[in-house]
Every structure is written in C-alpha cells, then in structure tokens.
C-alpha cells in the first residue's frame, strides 16, 4: 500500500510538538525537562471542554495540530482513533463508583468511557460527518491503526486522520498495567501526493523476520517501549530524516509492518 503524509503532530514527554521532536532528532536540541503541560482540548466548546477527560483533550489536541499542518478541511477527513487502554482515568473513576454501595455513575463519565469518546468529541467539535473508527490492538494499536487508516484511505479514496493516544492508569490499575506516559501522535494520510511531506509504502512481512526498528537514543528507546502510541517513534524519526528509510514495526502476533518512508521535497520545510 502506498500512502502520502500530509500532516504530522506529536505530544509526548520531552516534546510538546512535532517541531520540538523533529529538532531533537535532526539537530540534537535537548528535549525539555519541564513537566509535560496538561492537554488543553482547545478545539472543544467550553461546555465540552469541562466534560472532557485528559485522554479526550490530548487526542483532539494532536488531531487539531495535524489538521493544521495539513492545511486540509476537517469535514473532509475520516478518523481512525487508536489506543491500547482508552480513557484510563474515566475507566478508573467508573470502577471506583461501581465499587461503592450506592453505585452512582455520572452520565457524562459513562459516555466518556466508550473507546470512541475522543473520536466523538472530535467529530462534534470539527463538524466532520465522515466515517470514524476507534480501534485497539494492545501494544500494537498504532501499527494496527496505521493499517486500518491506510486501507480506508486507499479503498474509499478519503483522506484519513489517524490519532493514537495513550495515558497512564491511576492506581490501583497502574500497578497491573504500568507505563503509558501521556503520548499522542496524529498523522493525516491521503492517497494523493500533491502537497505531501512524505510517501509511505506499507506491507505486511511474515516470511523474512527483521528486527523491529529501535531508537538509537536510549531515552527515546525507553520511551518507545512505553506504550502503543510511543511505538510510532521510529516512524517519526524516519519522517524527520533526510533520505529514504525502512522502518519495521511490530504488528499482530508475529507479523511485522514494513514501512518505507520517502520524504518529498515539494514543501519548503516540514511542518
């Protein structure tokens, strides 16, 4: 499958934007040691922002940043949202409420708990009536989302916004599912090349098992292994690089995704 990247956004520990991560990857600028800013959910209306959890806000923030960098219209983009654990804080709060004698569940918390809540908030805020899917494939959710978004983009000839977000569980679930520092990544994919930053050629590899691409920087390599969203880092590194790169991502079971990334220089600078 061949698909083009028209927008990129990322927010993770040490970098609040794609520009920051890219500068670190390309020019070696330091990652920030400041605590990660809480996501704002800027596209949401005031009422929706008050109802939204950090997972929802992080998802719509990276979605909006990727949309801006693509210069495309939100109404045209289908959405694929991927996450391994979904809305971790809301799930914790629900289970806590259900363990009390009264079992009082807040209606807002209940509708926020569905895996597609971030996608729903996005569609309401952006006005997009295009198809919207929300998926999970455990630690491989980003790779599965990439396949889902690319196949949709090509088969339906619709540009697709792929958003992958993971946040940590609070205790006591954290002890059972550690890791997942807040990490959000969003890509705008299109079947048409004009105005794109890079081209990706994606295939499923089975018979020739290669090593999954790791990060050379030990800090980023630790981060890569932290969540499904952070497993996008090698692909982001290839997008920051100057030449053609092959990235191998772990996919379902012992399958792997082989992604060849070729930057296109039609743009004066990367977003």
């Amino acid at each position: 499958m061949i698909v083009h990247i028209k927008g990129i956004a990322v927010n993770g520990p040490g970098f609040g934007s794609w520009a920051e991560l890219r500068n670190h990857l390309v020019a070696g600028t330091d990652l920030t040691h400041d605590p990660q800013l809480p996501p704002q959910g800027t596209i949401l209306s005031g009422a929706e922002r008050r109802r939204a959890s950090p997972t929802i806000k992080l998802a719509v923030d990276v979605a909006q940043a990727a949309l801006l960098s693509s210069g495309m219209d939100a109404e045209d983009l289908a959405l694929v949202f991927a996450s391994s654990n979904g809305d971790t804080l809301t799930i914790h709060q629900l289970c806590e409420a259900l363990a009390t004698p009264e079992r009082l569940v807040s209606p807002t918390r209940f509708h926020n708990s569905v895996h597609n809540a971030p996608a729903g908030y996005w569609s309401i805020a952006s006005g997009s009536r295009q198809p919207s899917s929300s998926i999970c494939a455990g630690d491989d959710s980003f790779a599965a989302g990439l396949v889902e978004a690319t196949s949709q983009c090509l088969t339906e000839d619709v540009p697709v916004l792929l958003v992958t977000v993971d946040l940590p569980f609070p205790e006591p679930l954290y002890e059972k599912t550690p890791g997942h520092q807040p990490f959000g990544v969003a890509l705008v994919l299109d079947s048409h090349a004009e105005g794109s930053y890079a081209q990706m050629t994606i295939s499923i590899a089975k018979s020739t098992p290669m090593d999954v691409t790791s990060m050379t920087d030990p800090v980023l390599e630790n981060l890569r292994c932290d969540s499904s969203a952070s497993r996008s880092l090698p692909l982001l590194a290839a997008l920051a690089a100057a030449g053609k790169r092959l990235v191998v991502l772990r996919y379902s079971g012992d399958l792997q995704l082989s992604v060849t990334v070729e930057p296109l220089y039609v743009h004066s600078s990367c977003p």
Partner: protein
Amino acid sequence: MQPLVLNHYTLVNALGRGLSPTFTALSTKKSGLRPCDFLDVPINTYIGRIAGLEEEPIVARLREFDCRNNRLAQLGLVSDGFDTAVAAACNRYGAHRIAVILGTSTSGILETEQAYRRRDMKGALPEDFRYRTTHENYSVTDFVRRYLKLEGPALTISTACSSSAKVFASAYRLMDNNLCDAAVVGGVDSLCMTTLYGFSALEVVSSTPCRPADAERNGISIGEAAGFALLERPQGRNDVPALLGYGESSDAYHMSSPHPEGAGARLAMKRALQQSRLDTTQIDYINLHGTATRANDSAEDLAVSTLFGRLTPCSSTKGWTGHTLGAAGITEAIIGCLCLREGLLPASLNTTKVDPNFTMNVLLENHHQPLVRMLSNSFGFGGNNASLIFGYPEP
C-alpha cells in the same frame, strides 16, 4: 463493491446457542428477555442474559483469558461448527492470511469492576486479577485469534453500539488491499455493571421488555451476545448470503443523543446503497437499530422514511435479543442472514401501537415470504453510524 460471502456464521444470544434456537424463537415470537437477575444488580429492568455462561470456563490452554466476555466468545466459536469451518479455511488460505476483526464495547470490564470490590486495605487490586487478557479491548480478539490458531491481521473495533457492524467494512478494506484472503468478523459484548448502571444514569433503561417504535416506548433492554462470520471472496455459489455494501458516517452532533433528524443515520444508509449500487426499491427489509429509546427511534424513523419512503418493511429485533451493544451489529447481521435464508420478515416484538408520528412501515407481525436483500442499521454513542446490506449475489 465486490460482494463478500458469508459461507459460515453463528450467533449465541438470549434466544439460544446457535442459529437453530435463534430462528425458532424468532419464528414463534418468543422473547429472550427476562427480569434482571444479573449478579446483585437491583435495577428494575429486563435483560437478555445468556444462562449458564458461568459454568463454561475457558479452555485450559487459554486460561489466562478467562472472563465472562471471553467465555461468551468461546460459546460462539463452538456453535454451528464455526471453529471447524475456520480450521478448514485455515488449511486453504494459511493461518496468516485470515484476519480477525471483532467489535466490543466493554470487553471484560466486569473483571475490573469486581476486582475493585476486592481491593485490599492499601487499595491494591487482588493478586489473581489480570487486566490485559480480560478487560483490555483487544483481549477478546486476541483470545479468538489464539483459540482459532489464526495469525493474520487482528484488531478490535470499539465504537460503542456500531462496533460489530463496522468490522465488515474493515475486513472488506483489508481484503481489497490484499492484506488477507478471508476474515473472521464478529462481535462479543457481555453484561456488566458499567452498562447497566450507566444507561440507568442516562434514564434510558426500560422497566418493561423494550418496545421499539411503540408510542409508549420508554427505553432499552440490555442484552449480551457473541456472533461470528467467516467472510470470503465469492466462489461461484449464489445460495449463501453476501455482504453487498456498507456505509459509515458520524453525526457530529452529540455524545449520547442522535441527530434529531437522523442526518448521520441517513448518510450511512445512503452510502451503503451507493456502494452496493442498489436503489431503495431493491431492499426488501430493514432491520432497524431500534433501541426503543424515544430519541433513537424518532431520529431513525425520519432517516429511514426520508430515504426509503413509507413502504419498505422495517423492524427492530431488540424485543427478542435486547440491545447487545457492541455485539448489536453482528447480532442483527446474522439475524438478517437467517431471515434471508428462511424467508422471514420479523415483527417488532413487544410493539403494540406504532408511534403515530412515525412514517416508516413498522411490522407488527411476522411475515413468511422470500426476500433477497436486507439492510441493517447500527448507531452508537459519539454519533457513530454504520449500515450494512446483505443479500444473495447476482448469479
């Protein structure tokens, strides 16, 4: 689009384990709903519970996946010889060329709900609690994949009540891009406290068995189900049902209320018709999302009647099965295939007087007559819509 055939399919729900008891209950108008007797939940409502799930543990080799939701998945896999059919397909295509795409909305969250009640003095969860293999949304897909020994692409789609309708679209796209040759699609959703108390908090749970499209309808009855279908490219047979089209859309309106005029629902149906190159007169029956909430059924009536007019026979089968949430798409897809096979237009069970404001043609009685194509609607929280068209492909 190129139709994809459903050579094998199965369904476990409140009507029984497998296609035969399900069809018997449909044709004799016997509902699977019963007064709520799930755990210690004192909510005044009816539920579509599958009796005996508690006594059906997971196979020993996959014991770490043991939870109500995966037990239900396993019951589905062994019904109607589905696992045997997949094993044969595996020999034909190779394990890595068969995808597994399943829908669920709450997966095994019941395990976490119960574990939170067993926290120790320090607030820690019990030693025996496993999150990843029970509650995580991927758990059910991972379990099914391992149970069937499949090695192809796998993912869970979780878009609330449209989850297991959208699996058909996802499978079509994987096959269209030659990433697999066949796909096990389906959905599994089981009773849990999150949905029983959550829908109660939204005040949309009915104290009587749900009455879709009825003037007096007052909410949903929650059910549970597991359904599976093996999707393959056509092999020259025209006596098995096929997926002829799908349509997806978003409401862009509200998190838990449908667009009042059903704009998103209408768009999903329209896209399904366009993709299948069919016009509305070629659809013999519509299986409505028909949850029996005031808002859903009114919006769906507007969406259906503005697109189809007032003639096309429609009904919701949730009066039989309850609303099986993340499994509703597959439940009603399989019921649709059964109705095609057996020539049944099912009634809207429990409905006595259709809402006088409605225009669509809601069936109050079963009609036994041949039908060639049907459309099934599934709409979920977040304004997530999917419509599927099944029928016999042209010879």
